[in-house]
């Protein structure tokens, strides 16, 4: 497969970036998208050029490290997968592929295609936890009865890997899907109810402070999310937030 890649290159966070065009040959359909970039980088290194910097870690769709806006969609044209799970068979010989970093004010570019997603960490740190004493006498989680439906829903919310595709897909660069998944996974369980009020208020306050946009319910985040996190989480977070605001 012969491809033309248009890739965003940016020296560092301060530099002004630009698109550079790279022709690439010998791409196999069975390669993952990241393996294709590895091939490109090998060629660039052999030519003495600076390789394209991109995020990756587990390469099996569970760590949330890989990102990339590929031909106008986060994680590319396929559904329910991350970039590392995207196969080159999704593209055709002769295609031009535009590769950009996830764009948001709250996700500043560090270099090339790598963005700083520590704003997500700070939202999580603002309340995405439960306070449990783990010093020696940990209570068995199964000792607390949990409704099966709620447990399943909580697990669904907890599958969010925090990759940031929701922000990248949203026309407003809103982080509501991520934040709502992190609020929901605890809000649905009895263990999470104890700190529910402070959690939602603090996490939403941190989300706003980071400079993400407002959700306008387009639903793009849900479609592009590699883990299929549902918009119902956003409705649940809105409900939790209103309840918490009234309660104080």
């Amino acid at each position: 497969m012969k491809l033309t890649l248009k890739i965003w290159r940016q020296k560092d966070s301060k530099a002004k970036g630009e698109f550079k065009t790279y022709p690439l040959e010998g791409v196999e359909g069975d390669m993952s998208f990241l393996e294709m970039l590895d091939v490109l980088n090998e060629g660039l290194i052999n030519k003495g050029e600076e390789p394209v910097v991109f995020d990756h870690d587990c390469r099996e769709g569970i760590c949330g490290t890989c990102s990339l806006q590929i031909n106008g969609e986060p994680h590319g044209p396929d559904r329910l997968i991350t970039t590392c799970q995207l196969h080159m068979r999704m593209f055709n010989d002769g295609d031009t592929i535009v590769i950009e970093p996830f764009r948001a004010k709250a996700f500043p570019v560090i270099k090339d295609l790598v963005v700083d997603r520590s704003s997500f960490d700070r939202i999580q740190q603002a309340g995405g936890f439960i306070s449990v004493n783990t010093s020696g006498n940990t209570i068995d989680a199964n000792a607390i009865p949990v409704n099966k439906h709620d447990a399943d829903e909580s697990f669904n919310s907890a599958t969010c890997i925090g990759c940031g595709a929701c922000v990248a897909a949203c026309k407003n660069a809103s982080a509501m899907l991520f934040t709502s998944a992190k609020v929901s996974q605890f809000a649905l369980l009895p263990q999470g109810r104890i700190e529910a009020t402070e959690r939602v208020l603090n996490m939403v306050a941190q989300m706003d402070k980071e400079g993400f946009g407002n959700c306008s319910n387009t639903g793009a985040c849900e479609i592009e999310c590699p883990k299929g996190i549902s918009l119902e989480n956003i409705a649940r977070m809105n409900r939790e937030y209103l309840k918490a605001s009234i309660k104080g």
Partner: protein
Amino acid sequence: MAILSSTIARKVAMALSGLFLIVFLTQHFIINFSAVFGPDTFNAWSDFMGGNPIVQFIFQPILIFGVLFHFVMGIYLEIKNNNARQIKYKSFKGNRNSTWASRNMIISGAVILAFLGLHFYDFWFPEIMYKYIESNPTDTVRYYPELVHKFASPIRTGLYCLSFVLLALHLWHGFSSSFQSMGWSNKYSRGLRAFTQFYAIFIPLGFIFIAIYLHFNQIH
């Protein structure tokens, strides 16, 4: 008062003001639709709405505030949202994951706002002039001929119809979205969504029907 500056509170404020405007739109539609059946009911209801002090001096200012709030907040949110992504994508395939109506509420909203300008010029300003500035004597049967004559012009009728198409798009996303913003998500959500989409088509289509009907049924 952190709640007032939070994104969720703003979403809820947009939702509530939008729902309030939908209630108004419904009663406006019912009154206008009565004009299809002749002048009597339309004149009677218009006279009540135009003369009742509670409607004129309590509901009307609340409505004007509701309209102003909805569009000022809408523009403010649009600016904030644009700032949240300062460097735009070279390639952004919004139509692969969302509807045109949901992504372009600011465009449909701007057309509706422009339409409101025309609508005020056509009906509201002449009405205020007639009643409160020129202090004309009460005439309970003037409303129907005024309405019908406004739709004599094919350009005006066309502009009204175009605006109602954009209103349909605005309602298609906005009405169901308002419930999501307020945290409504339960076993009735699907039914409610179907109702909001029916409303989004039916009411603007009804307004288009009224405009075209009056255009072709002029009083000579």
